[in-house]
């Protein structure tokens, strides 16, 4: 199979993200936001209890 946008995308597989410079940093940001969500929700649970 050939043709289509995925061909032109092949060279872009290792392209950096538009923000945060590396994918690793962006992944840490997503994980960090999850941790922030969990802590915020835990504090909400404690406050409302």
């Amino acid at each position, binding site marked *: 199979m050939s043709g*289509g*946008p*995925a061909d032109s995308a*092949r060279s872009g597989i290792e*392209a950096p993200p538009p923000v945060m410079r590396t994918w690793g940093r962006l992944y840490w940001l997503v994980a960090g936001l999850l941790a922030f969500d969990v802590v915020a*929700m835990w504090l909400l649970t404690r406050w409302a*209890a």
Partner: protein
Amino acid sequence: MSLAALDWLVLIGTIATIVLYGAWRSRGMRDVNSFVRGDALKWPTIGLSIMATQASAITFISTPGQGFSDGMRFVQFYFGLPLAMIVISAVFVPVYYRLNVRTAYEYLEHRFDVRVRLFGGLLFLIGRGLGTGITIYAPAIILSQILGWPLHPTIWAMGLVVVVYTVLGGSRAVSITQKQQMIVMLSGLAVAAVVVIVRLPRGVSVGDAVSVAGALGRMNVVSFDLDFSSRYNFWSGITGGFFLALSYFGTDQSQVQRYLSGSSVTESRLGLLFNGIFKVPMQLLILFIGVMVFVFYIFTRPPMHFDQPTMAQVAAGHGAEVAALEARHDRAFAERRDAALAFIAARGTAEQPAARARLVDAEHGFTAVHDDAKALIKRALPGAETRDTDFVFLSFVLEHLPVGLVGLLIAVILCAAMSAIASGLISLGATTVVDFYLRLRQALGRPPASPRHDLRASQIATIAWAAVAIGFASLASLFANLIEAVNILGSIFYGPILGLFVVALFIRWVTATPALVGAVVAQLLIFGLLAASKLAFLWYNVIGCAAVVVVSLVMQVFWEKPR
């Protein structure tokens, strides 16, 4: 209950605008690739499309009801999702792009052989085919019961509208309409959140409402207790939720097709990470709306049972018992309302613990009447469903939202249904044609057909699956507990499919035959567990995946030499 003319106008206008815009933007399909992939979409469209695919109508009907009855702990079920998005973005997406695949199962042939590809594709077709039928049936049955719409025409209308734009516009139409649908859904949610807060009694602030909800166990958002008997806690969410999300987003064609529509790896990855960031807050908001509806009904008299059509049937034959229950319900409501107001007045004072105890007692009294109402339904109508949580949010919308906004919220539910149905249908059509029809032609040595022929085959396969799903949805009322049955069916197939992909991606020295045997054995094991054990069905995902890995490793060691 019927809709006002303005609600109909908003409802039909919203749906028609989205469908026509999607069809117009996606005109000009040339071949099967443009039908299956959609091509060249940017990350906001991909991200919203991924979210819309997962958010079925049940999300907007049942989840607020879950917040209402069980509190917010269900949000923990989604804690594994952002981590799964990271793994799929880092591992799955580059592989799919590098091999230029159109379906997830095409990758299995690249990695193993055609037998494994067909087996994976077959498991997907069975599970998703049944699931799409229920995606049509579940909202139709609730809308028909509450709004009095005829069930079968509702099913057919929903299915037909979706199949028209899906077949005419392909994956691009699905993604573009999902983007608009998701915008409508998020707007509707925001409106519902504002209305329920504004409708709280004068003098009751959001802080007071949250405090009352907390006293009555509805603000149980996060629990770090390692309790295996508890369905939702941090640990089950971060592990079980991770496996489920990895399987669903990484190997289910209805999701894989969404992010393979990206114009580049970067766009696909960003779309997935967008979902990873916003999914948990979105679910939190939906559950919070349910909790605020719960508090709203502490101060505004709720129906004794939210499934009012069923309650009316009971009243027809047991009028005196229903009247007696209604009188108890009135007293219990007044006692709980007064206790809640006293609790709010006592916040921050020495009287707070006593006021809290009184409120909790009043809640027990209120719940006892509701339980008695359910027992009466069970006695009067032995086959009827006694749970009413699925009716809570729609009842609130219909009875307490202003005219016009009711139409918007019904549009939200229909948009959610249509977006999930469209993803299901187009993924079924794509898998049927790409993994079976075109592959079979190739195996038989037939020359490649024209692009138009392949496009037609894809469209016909999608229509055929729509007919299957609509037919299944039309027959669904013949079966009891069908929704639960199909949820179990989904979990039966997800584990072995995920296991195949885990072996393919992470255990490079396992070859085709051990992997295939591992998947078949795992599938049989799950069938055996289903027949002979009372194991909670969510565990099938983990056990099925683990069984494929273990059996294929053992097979590889004993029957085939490692590569």
